[in-house]
Structures are given as structure tokens and as C-alpha cells.
């Protein structure tokens, strides 16, 4: 036979054994508890004396009560003996109990004068009190005198009989604690000793059974879910039932057990018959407990403890709902659940539940804090990316829980990375472009130098040939234009790639214009152009870069000189407008201006689209860029043949005339 078969047998046997032992344990528990509660037979101190036990106290109490009512009946029936016979049956029974020789209790009843009325013995009062325990109840005085000081409140007795026939009488009770007669007291004594003697055995048996039970439970747990030849944990059908239901079943089982025990102890009493009848329900109860236990064990072994629970289904439903529905609903739902749980636990729960709840709430608080911190982290990161601080934005994704949070963090990192890369590439591309232009123009200038040189040499040869002279003139002109173009190209590219230094100083715009007028006087006169300058009396101070400003103004004046219709006037105006200084240069164009202002300022654009006249197209574009670079405004307005250039610069209020006159500044330029 293979080992799996054996193991199956073992397993079956262990299950059966578990059930049996479990039932026994349950019942034993019942019995033990019963005696502990009712009979006081089992105590850790191991009583030697029956008289010290609760069983004796109870039995004695019952006897005394019985005696009192017997005496009561006797006295009353003596009064009415002549008449009714009363309840003979009851009197008969009671009579039998306390007759001489039938009870271990001996009594003598005296009336108020000290004369003995009733008695069941012929002993003296002194001898009565020597029997074992004595109790003297004086109903006239309302006192109690006894040597039994255990567990009994005899004071209650006199109060009970104030109105009855026993009033005013005196009762002396003696208890023969050797219990020679077989009565209820002696039976109680016998039972006490029986149980006491057997209690050790019972406790030992109980401990043994519990040990066995635990071992069986452990063994069951180990073998739970195993089948032959399979390594995985096999789940039984009941494992797919939501765990909450099984737990409920288990709780019901345990609850039923308490009920059963209560019934046995309080109402049925524990004897052989009741134990047998209790075994069936006990078996059922224990079966349910074992089933639930094993199911939990199997689930934990298969690591699916959360899988088949209502809680998980509920959570899944919420999660699914939130994927497609809006987040507000989910948040409200979560909040409501949380508040409800809190409310229920606080209002209806007991202390342990509340403590657990406090712990859960703290956890929740901690989680909220964590979420907020994470959000701040992400917020900061995005902010840094936004501001271009691309060295510190990186998020540590291990901070974020797997799932949507981590995905978001990774996405942010990814965005930052892409951004950085793009910026780097962009910068590199710009720089490469700028370098390329510089290098190319440099490479152009070298052969161009030779062209210009040799054209000049040819001119110097004074060739006696009109055509040759003309050709040379053309060569000279074009090569000069190439030169200007190459220089402008470099400058324009440097300006647009941002590698031009701007040194802003306070300068006098008015002075600049007068200087410009001086520079261009010759050229303007050549072309029969009259310059009309209109500037304020005092200095007009602006913050600008001197050399760039000159470049701009030079360009405008140069254009005016080159492109104006000969014989016309050129107007140069400078005036304040609010907190800005405005300079305008107006001239009449020789060629028609068949172009829009914006197009004119685009690089390489010229008013004369045939591009044959002298000069190149970069000038205006460079002028505009330079102006803007210094923080000024540059505008071109075209109206018919009128060409108007407008430059705005914020005036420099800070300094005054004195600044320009300081000797220090004067010498340091």
C-alpha cells in the first residue's frame, strides 16, 4: 500500500478522534464549570472539610428553611387541629423529615416563657449545642447565635417570622456533623467527598484531553488541504463561501455552546442522563467549529485568506465603480463607510473594540498624512520642472505604493527627463547653429579678402580699357556687398542665439542723435538730403547699451541716406511720451514701398523685392533685435512712400544731469 493511502487513513482517524475528543472536552468543560459554580467541590485549595464548603452551606440553608416552615405548619395545625386537617400530604412529608432518628438536625422550640413546645429529641440544650454546629434563633429578641460563621446570613430568619406563629419563640438547632443519619445533609456530604476525590482525576483527565485536542487541531491544520500527489493546497467547497459567513457560523456555534452549558448548569443539573443528551448538540456544535477552523487554515495556507470574503468583494465593487464613475462618489463612499464604522463601534462597541477602533483611526490618519506628503512631493517636483530647475526634481519611486501612485510618480520623472533632454538638445542645436554660422562666415571671409585685394590691385593697374574698368567696378561693388553681408550674418546669428553681451548704462539719447547727424552729414549732403532734427533742450537719459544703440541708429540713418528720394527731407525727432523716450526717423522712399512693415523686418527682406539695389536686408532685422535686446521697442510704419522708424526706450529717471558731469565717470570711459 502506498504512503498516501496510509496518510489518508491517518487523516480520517484523526478527524474522527478530533470530533470525539472535542465533544468530550466540551462536556467536561460543562461539568467542571457546573461544579465550580454550584457545588464548590472543585477548588484549587482542595478542601478537607465538608463543613467548610459551599455545598454544606447550601444544604444547611435548605434544611433550616425547611425546618422553619415545618414548625410553622405544626404550630398552626395544632391551633386548628380541632377543625380542618390542613394539607395532610405536605405535613406528612415534612413530618417525616424532621422526626427523631430521621434527621441529623435536632431542634427544641421554646415559647416566650422558656417552656419547651416542640422537639424531636430528648437532649438538653447544652448537649444540643455540643453536637457539631448549633444555631439559636431567638425570635422574641430578634437575635441569632451560632458557631457556624460561614457564608450564611441568619439575620434574615428572625425578620421572616415576625408575623407568624413563631413570633416570640426561641428555637435551638443542633447539627450532628458526624451525620449518622442518612438525610439530605449526609447525602450532600457524600456527594462532596465523591466529587472532591474525583476532582483531581477529572482535572487531570481534562488537561489531558485538552492537550490531545490541541495536538489534533494542529495535526488537522498541517494536513489541511492536502491531497495525494498534489503540492498545492486544495480548497474545499466551503472555502469559497465568504469568510464572514463561516465566522458567523463559528460564532453561532460558540454561542450555542454557552447556551447549552447554561441550560445544563442552571436547569437540568449534571448527571449521567443529561450529559448523554447534551452530547448530540455538543457534537454538532463542535463539528461546526472544526469545519470553520479548518476552512480558515486552508485559506491561509493557500494564501487566499482575503480572496473569498465579503470585504474583498465589497472593495472590488468600489474599485470597479470608481474606475468608470467619478472620483467624488468613491470619496464620499469611503468617507461614509469610515464614519459609520466609527459611529457603530463607539456607540455600540465595548472597550476592546474601541481601542482597536482608535488604532485603526490612527492608522487612517497616518495614511492620510502619507498621502498628503506624497502629493506635496509630486507637486514640488512638477513645480521644479516648470521653473526649469532640472537638477533636483527626481522623485524616489519607492516612496510610492505600487499602483496608480507609483505610476504617477514615474510619469513625473519621465516628463522631467524628457524636458531636460529636450532642453539640452535645444541648447546644443542652437549653439551648433551659431557656431556653424560663425565658422562658415569666417571661411567665406578668407577668400573674400583675396577677391577684394586683387580687385583693388587690378584697379591700381590703371588698365587702359573702359570695359575692364567697368567690370572692375562691378566686382568691387559686389565683393564689398559680400563683405557686409558676411559681417551682418555673424552678428544676426549671435544676437538671435543670445551670445551678445548687453551692457546697460545711462546715456543721453539727444547727444547720440546729434552725433549721428554729424556722422552722416557728408553722406546726406551727397544725396541732396536735408536733415531736420527736432530734439528737446536738455538731456534725454535712457538706460541702454551705447554701442548697440549706435548700431541701431546708424542703421536707420544709413537706410534713410541710402533709400531716400534725393532732394527730400529726413526728419529726426526725439520726444518724451509718458515715461518713455521716443525717437522717430522719417523719410520719403525713392522706390515704391510695395511691402508690409512686418515683412520688411523679416530677415533678408527688402523694400525693393528685386534685390538689386545696394545694401543687404539684414540691417533692419539686426536693428530690431538689438533694440529689443536692450529692453526697448522697435516699430516700422509705412504710409505710401513715407517710411517711419519708431524706437521707444524707458527713460532713466534715477540719474540727473549731474551724473554725466562727474569727473570720475568722464575719465573712465
Amino acid at each position, binding site marked *: 500500500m502506498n504512503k498516501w493511502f496510509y496518510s489518508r487513513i491517518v487523516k480520517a482517524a484523526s478527524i474522527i478522534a478530533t470530533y470525539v475528543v472535542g465533544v468530550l472536552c466540551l462536556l467536561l468543560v460543562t461539568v467542571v464549570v457546573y461544579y465550580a459554580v454550584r457545588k464548590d467541590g472543585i477548588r484549587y485549595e482542595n478542601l478537607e472539610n465538608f463543613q467548610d464548603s459551599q455545598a454544606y452551606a447550601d444544604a444547611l440553608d435548605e434544611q433550616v428553611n425547611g425546618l422553619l416552615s415545618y414548625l410553622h405548619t405544626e404550630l398552626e395545625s395544632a391551633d386548628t387541629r380541632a377543625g380542618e386537617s390542613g394539607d395532610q400530604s405536605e405535613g406528612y412529608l415534612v413530618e417525616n423529615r424532621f422526626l427523631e432518628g430521621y434527621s441529623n438536625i435536632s431542634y427544641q422550640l421554646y415559647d416566650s416563657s422558656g417552656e419547651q413546645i416542640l422537639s424531636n429529641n430528648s437532649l438538653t440544650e447544652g448537649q444540643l449545642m455540643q453536637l457539631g454546629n448549633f444555631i439559636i434563633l431567638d425570635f422574641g429578641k430578634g437575635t441569632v447565635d451560632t458557631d457556624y460563621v460561614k457564608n450564611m446570613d441568619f439575620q434574615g430568619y428572625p425578620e421572616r417570622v415576625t408575623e407568624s406563629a413563631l413570633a416570640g419563640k426561641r428555637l435551638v438547632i443542633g447539627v450532628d456533623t458526624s451525620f449518622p443519619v442518612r438525610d439530605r445533609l449526609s447525602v450532600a456530604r457524600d456527594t462532596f467527598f465523591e466529587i472532591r476525590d474525583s476532582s483531581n482525576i477529572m482535572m487531570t483527565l481534562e488537561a489531558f484531553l485538552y492537550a490531545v485536542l490541541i495536538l489534533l487541531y494542529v495535526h488537522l491544520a498541517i494536513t489541511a488541504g492536502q491531497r495525494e500527489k498534489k503540492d498545492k493546497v486544495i480548497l474545499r467547497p466551503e472555502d469559497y463561501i465568504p469568510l464572514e459567513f463561516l465566522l458567523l457560523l463559528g460564532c453561532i456555534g460558540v454561542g450555542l455552546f454557552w447556551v447549552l452549558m447554561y441550560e445544563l448548569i442552571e436547569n437540568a443539573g449534571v448527571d449521567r442522563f443529561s450529559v448523554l443528551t447534551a452530547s448530540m448538540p455538543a457534537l454538532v456544535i463542535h463539528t461546526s467549529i472544526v469545519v470553520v477552523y479548518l476552512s480558515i487554515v486552508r485559506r491561509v495556507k493557500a494564501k487566499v485568506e482575503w480572496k473569498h470574503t465579503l470585504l474583498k468583494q465589497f472593495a472590488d465593487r468600489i474599485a470597479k465603480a470608481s474606475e468608470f464613475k467619478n472620483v467624488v462618489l468613491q470619496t464620499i463612499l469611503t468617507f461614509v463607510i469610515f464614519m459609520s464604522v466609527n459611529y457603530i463601534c463607539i456607540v455600540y462597541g465595548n472597550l476592546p473594540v474601541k481601542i482597536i477602533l482608535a488604532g485603526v483611526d490612527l492608522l487612517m490618519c497616518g495614511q492620510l498624512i502619507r498621502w498628503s506628503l506624497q502629493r506635496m512631493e509630486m507637486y514640488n517636483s512638477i513645480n521644479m520642472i516648470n521653473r526649469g530647475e532640472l537638477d533636483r526634481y527626481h522623485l524616489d519611486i519607492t516612496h510610492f505604493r505600487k499602483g496608480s501612485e507609483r505610476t504617477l510618480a514615474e510619469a513625473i520623472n519621465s516628463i522631467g527627463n524628457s524636458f531636460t533632454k529636450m532642453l539640452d538638445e535645444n541648447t546644443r542645436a542652437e549653439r551648433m547653429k551659431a557656431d556653424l554660422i560663425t565658422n562658415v562666415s569666417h571661411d567665406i571671409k578668407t577668400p573674400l579678402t*583675396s577677391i577684394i585685394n586683387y580687385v583693388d590691385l587690378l584697379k591700381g593697374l590703371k588698365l587702359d580699357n573702359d570695359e575692364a574698368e567697368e567690370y572692375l567696378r562691378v566686382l568691387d561693388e559686389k565683393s564689398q556687398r559680400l563683405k557686409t553681408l558676411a*559681417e551682418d550674418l555673424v552678428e544676426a546669428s549671435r544676437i538671435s542665439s543670445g551670445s551678445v553681451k548687453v551692457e546697460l548704462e545711462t546715456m*543721453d539719447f539727444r547727444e547720440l542723435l546729434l552725433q549721428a547727424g554729424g556722422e552722416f552729414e557728408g553722406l546726406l549732403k551727397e544725396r541732396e538730403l536735408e536733415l531736420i532734427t527736432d530734439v528737446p533742450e536738455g538731456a534725454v537719459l535712457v538706460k541702454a547699451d551705447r554701442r548697440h544703440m549706435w548700431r541701431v541708429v546708424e542703421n536707420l540713418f544709413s537706410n534713410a541716406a541710402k533709400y531716400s528720394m534725393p532732394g527730400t527731407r529726413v526728419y529726426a525727432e526725439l520726444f518724451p511720451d509718458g515715461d518713455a523716450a521716443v525717437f522717430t526717423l522719417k523719410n520719403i522712399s525713392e522706390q515704391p514701398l510695395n511691402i508690409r512693415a512686418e515683412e520688411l523686418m523679416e530677415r533678408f527682406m527688402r523694400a525693393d523685392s528685386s534685390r538689386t539695389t545696394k545694401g543687404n536686408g539684414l540691417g533692419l532685422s539686426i536693428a530690431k533685435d538689438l533694440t529689443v535686446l536692450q529692453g526697448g521697442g522697435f516699430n516700422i510704419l509705412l504710409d505710401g512712400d513715407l517710411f517711419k522708424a519708431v524706437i521707444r526706450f524707458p527713460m532713466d529717471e534715477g540719474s540727473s544731469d549731474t551724473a554725466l558731469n562727474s569727473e570720475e565717470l568722464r*575719465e573712465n570711459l
Partner: protein
Amino acid sequence: MGYEGYNILICDDDKAIVDAVGIYLSGEGYSVYKAYDGAQVFDIIQKEQIHLVLLDIMMPVMDGLEVTKMIREQSGIPIIFMSAKAQDEDKIQGLQIGADDYITKPFNPRELVARVNSMVRRYTKLGAMPADEANSYRTGGLVISDDKKKVTVDGRDVRLTPLEYNILLFLVKNQGKVYTINEIYENIWNEEAFGADNTVAVHIRHIREKIEVNPKNPQYLKVVWGWGYKVEKYE
């Protein structure tokens, strides 16, 4: 003009440029030596007496800056850079290394020649400075003798109108300082300046054209745009 006997060394890795410049300088009377890289420059300087070096910057083997550094360890021969690199940083760097002048390609050959002449005169006996007379003012190669009402630039006579002379004298006397148009006017005409008059500016322009090798790139009479004019202060 008497530049015979003076030796100019031209160095550029572009042979055409060297030849062209050579022709111009020979026309002036100079003896021309040619080199095509930095190492050759060194050789020639050791062997011959060179009075001025025209040096390209971008050259193989040893570039112009290297050569200048090495030359400067031994002598103060005037060096003029020729380069297509025209940015201010390049010029400043060149002058700091030890060159005396910087001309950008493509250049006007005439201007190049004028500069060479200027520098030769200044650094040799040709441009002999007159004895320090009482009313004599000087900056670099620009000398004004107020007694004789004579202006010379590197030994070359310059003819100025009385007004131009007064303006230039004023600025040379206060060399290194900037004066606005109004200030110059008041100093010369002794009356308040008023109105938008660019007479001064025009005169300045004329002066520049007369005394400067390249008026567009003046060495002495400089424009401080947005402020005024000054004459540079040289040793």
C-alpha cells in the same frame, strides 16, 4: 615716403593674401618677407632684422596667438593681427596677448598699408618726436605744437581749419576725458550752447577723417555714443 630699408614680415596660411599684401607693401618701398605658418615666422625673425610683423591668427602648426606670445618673450617688434574673427572678444584677446593692432578680414588694402606705415613711423626713428616744447601736447603719435599751430600724426602733417584745430587742441589738452557737444561748444565759442546744433559733431567728423587712418575705426578721436567725444590718452 622713405620706407626703403624697412622689413615687413607677412604671415598667413593663404598664399594669395600674402602675395597681395606683399605687392602693396612693396609698392610703398618695404622689403617683404613671407611666411605661411608660425614656425616659419620664428625662423625668419631669428635670421633677419624685421621691423613689423603682419600675422594671421588661424594657422596650422602654430597659430598667431602662440607666435605672439613667444615673440614677446624676446622683443617688442610691432605686430599687427589680420583675422576674420571680428568680435570684440577676439580683438581684446589679441591685444592682450601682445599685438599692437588688429585688422579684420576682409580689409581695405589701403587701410592696411596706412596702418603699417603709421606703426612703422611710430616705432622707428622716422616718427621722431619733437623735443618737448612748452606748448606741445601729445598722445601716442598725435602731436600738436601750439606755438607753431602744427598737427602731426606719426610724423605726417595734418592740415586742419582753425575751428577744427581748436576743437582738437581742447580735447588733446584734456585727453582721456569725455565732453558733450554742448561742453565743447561752450569751451570753443565761449557762449551758451542752445538749440539742436550738430555743428560740433560735423567738425569732429572732419577732424577724424583727416587724422585717422580709418575714420570708421579711430585710434585717437573717439566717439562715446550718447555722451560725447574724447581723445584717447596714450603714452
